[in-house]
């Protein structure tokens, strides 16, 4: 199989990114534009499609918090969950303030991490 560093040509890694990165990503976006056709926002099929998209994004969130990669993987699981819950609680009760919610989540994560060790 042709790997990223298989060919000793400057253009090969770029072609690799075009095929394995761009083509298979924008394919789904373009298909979405065509499949949407003239369906209206409150049609039953759109309610279902939006629910699937929302559940997918929620899945992305849960995966990063529960099974992180990179440096975040070095933090304790309970601390990450606690930080998310604290951030969400502040966001929910303080007038849906995005910045405040983020700030509290970060403080709990970093503060707790430094306290533990």
């Amino acid at each position: 199989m042709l790997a990223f560093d298989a060919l000793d040509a400057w253009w090969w890694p770029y072609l690799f990114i075009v095929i394995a990165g761009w083509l298979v990503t924008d394919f789904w976006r373009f298909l979405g534009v065509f499949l949407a056709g003239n369906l209206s926002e409150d049609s039953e099929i759109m309610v279902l499609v939006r629910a699937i998209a929302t559940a997918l994004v929620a899945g992305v969130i849960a995966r990063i918090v529960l099974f992180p990669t990179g440096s975040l993987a070095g933090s304790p699981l309970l601390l990450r969950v606690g930080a998310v819950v604290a951030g969400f609680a502040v966001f929910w009760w303080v007038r849906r303030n995005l910045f405040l919610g983020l700030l509290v989540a970060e403080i709990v994560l970093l503060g707790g991490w430094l306290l533990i060790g």
Partner: protein
Amino acid sequence: MGDEFPEQTEDQTDPMREPMSLWFWRGVRGLGSVPAMVLAASFVGYGALARETGLDLGHTVFAAGIMFALPNQIVLIGAIGAGAGLFAAALAVALSAVRLLPMTMSLMPLLRGPSATKPWLLTVSHVMAVTSWVEAMRNLPALPRPARIYWFSGFAAGIVLLNVPMAAVGWLLAASVRPEFAAALGFLTPVYFLLSLTAASRFAADKWAMAFGLALAPVFHAITPETDLLWTGIVGGILAYGMHRLRLGRSI
């Protein structure tokens, strides 16, 4: 429909008094400070990860601009790091990008308007990703329909021009960032997604979908770690739709 809202908005007869370019700039400003900072921080994290994987600066920035979907960029550099072949890498990225299909589909009814032609919609669809989807779902419904495509185009241009250079910043800074700081940068993304998705959930079906998605993700991660997101979306979305139907049935 087309003559009702002409693209030459300087026209005196235009029922929309404000020029459309104004909506474009409002879209650029629609980035807002918080989403812009969070996504920018995430792109810095991506740039750093790309350097650790062995990509040079050109590859890192090129992939960021041409893909513009952080999770997919992470999957791609993961595959490159593992020495995967072209086909295996493309398959992994394609699987992780399926989520862009329902996201793009569900945005189209909101973006549609007199001047939103197919080529234009296809062009702006390139920036479709979690951040732009959430921000669009949150902001577009309140805007006049003819202005929406202009607002989103401004938003799209701004979000790309702001974030792609951030990948370069991350690549350049890679070696000098402390692990706790890198982790905090990475942690911004899921918290931001959660809060902004909550803000964007206007209907009962969306709220159920969020709850099911959060609950099902660890289950499918244990069963099928390769395609867990896809299954979480499909099963969680169908269950949420079922709850929506049940509620409708009861209220009639």
